[in-house]
């Protein structure tokens, strides 16, 4: 083969690899999109039937709003070519103005859009059963337009202007960028909205059982499936070494989820006498959120230990937030996404094959991981507080007591998820 032939062949292979990568990213993005169904089912299942319609609407609408706002503004802020305020955020000048997306990497926009929608939808579970629909819509729009894209731009463009990238921060698929942001917003939102009526009465913590564990389990399994796209797709490439890396990422993801569920199951068995269904489901999600940061940086053993730690932590954290802090989080979103998102990010500093404490990298990476993740937590908490404070003073955060007791479905949407001949759990 002549040198020219070789060159032509190499170029063709590059083109094929590029196309394969794009195809994988599109497939992965479709899987992540499906996670919206998972979130909806988990949240509906873990709450009462009188609020099922309200949760459906919140989950569908944050996806719709996020899809449009992230295309219109968010993507430019996160990935734009023009760096503003020393890398605080970005913009992408184009013939259509500063924001509206008009490049050719549409598949990347799609991939990032569904990630943004994931961050947004985490919040709806923590505030289920008492939050005003209109308030949630506004909050969701702000989160997908400004909050998530700004903090996302600190790391994910993976260039020299992303300050966490230059610091050596590792968050492969977004334990912090996506989940800790959503979880932190969920914490502040659940605190500001306040608990559901009947959750804390005269100092006593009451159980408000979810109405459909079948939905909860189906939702978790759909999320689990979607996560293979969430983490696997974040390799952002396919072919050769990248294919091997994607395989490793997917195995790490699956192992962490499995051990997370097992850990949560045994812990509830010991603590409460019986293996708790919804907590076991939360354990799988905890493992998934925890491994999201490190799935490209650790080996299978590291993934197992990270999943194990997160599965145990999520049970203790849900207990603590529910019984000690008395913040009412019906689905455990704060613990799953916020606490395990933070924990998973920090644990990369210990288990990363390159730079982790266990592999001779010293404590530097732990420190970077910690302040990186805390930056995301603090940013989301601060923004959420400001927005909800304004909304509280204007349109209010909660529905009326009467509306809450009757159920949000009847008052806010004029219908019920289940007509009254199926349920009477008023």
């Amino acid at each position, binding site marked *: 083969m002549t040198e020219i032939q070789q060159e032509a062949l190499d170029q063709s292979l590059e083109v094929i690899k590029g196309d394969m990568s794009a195809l994988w990213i599109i497939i992965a993005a479709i899987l992540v999109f499906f996670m919206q169904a998972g979130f909806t089912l988990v949240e509906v299942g873990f709450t009462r039937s009188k609020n099922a319609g309200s949760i459906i609407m919140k989950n569908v609408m944050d996806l719709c709003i996020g899809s449009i706002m992230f295309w219109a503004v968010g993507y430019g802020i996160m990935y734009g070519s023009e760096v503003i305020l020393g890398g605080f955020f970005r913009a992408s000048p184009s013939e259509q103005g500063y924001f509206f997306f008009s490049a050719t990497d549409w598949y990347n926009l799609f991939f990032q859009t569904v990630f943004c929608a994931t961050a947004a939808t985490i919040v709806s579970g923590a505030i289920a059963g008492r939050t005003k629909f209109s308030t949630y819509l506004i909050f969701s729009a702000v989160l997908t337009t400004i909050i998530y894209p700004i903090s996302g731009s600190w790391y994910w463009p993976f260039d020299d202007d992303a300050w966490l990238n230059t610091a050596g921060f590792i968050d492969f698929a977004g334990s912090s960028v996506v989940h800790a942001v959503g979880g932190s917003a969920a914490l502040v939102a659940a605190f500001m909205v306040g608990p559901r009526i009947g959750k804390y009465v005269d100092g006593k*913590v*009451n*159980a*408000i*059982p*979810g109405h459909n564990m079948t939905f909860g389990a189906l939702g978790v399994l759909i999320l689990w499936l979607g996560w293979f796209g969430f983490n696997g797709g974040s390799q952002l490439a396919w072919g050769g070494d990248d294919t091997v890396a994607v395989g490793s990422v997917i195995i790490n993801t699956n192992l962490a989820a499995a051990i997370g569920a097992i850990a949560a199951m045994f812990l*509830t068995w010991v*603590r*409460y*006498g*019986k293996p*708790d269904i*919804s*907590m076991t489901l939360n354990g799988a999600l905890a493992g998934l959120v925890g491994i999201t940061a490190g799935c490209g940086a650790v080996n299978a053993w590291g993934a197992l230990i990270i999943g194990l730690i997160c599965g145990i932590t999520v*049970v203790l954290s*849900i*207990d603590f937030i*529910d*019984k000690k802090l008395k913040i009412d989080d019906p689905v*455990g979103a704060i613990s799953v996404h916020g606490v395990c998102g933070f924990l998973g990010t920090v644990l990369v500093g210990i288990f990363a094959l390159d730079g982790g404490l266990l592999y001779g990298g010293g404590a530097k990476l732990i420190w970077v991981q910690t302040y990186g993740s805390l930056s995301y937590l603090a940013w989301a908490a601060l923004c959420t507080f400001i927005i909800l404070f304004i909304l509280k003073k204007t349109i209010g955060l909660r529905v009326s007591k009467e509306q809450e007791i009757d159920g949000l479905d009847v008052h806010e949407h004029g219908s019920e998820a289940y007509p009254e001949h199926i349920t009477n759990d008023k």
Partner: protein
Amino acid sequence: MKKIEAIIRKSKFDELKKALHQIEVNFFSYWDVTGVGNEKQGHVYRGISYSTSDIQRRYLTIVVSDEFLERTINTILDVASTGNVGDGKIFVSDVIEAYRIRTKESGQAGIN
């Protein structure tokens, strides 16, 4: 004629139905009821223990002639018992009259 009302465990229903058929008590009505009582049904949800004061039971109404009364009662007492709190109760009361709608028969003929 007597009306026997029995509140029993749902788990004992099939066994009781079979036993009643064996003593030729073939007609009765039943429905599922919710009540409160001494028994506490303990649950744990996400680490929080709670007990529902609502207890699910099955309620049977059997109208029998006087000669069937004793063996019907004995059958229920034997079959529906587990020995634990919450086995249920039986109430017996007089029935003034019974009619069969199709044939317009009354009295004994109305119930069998």
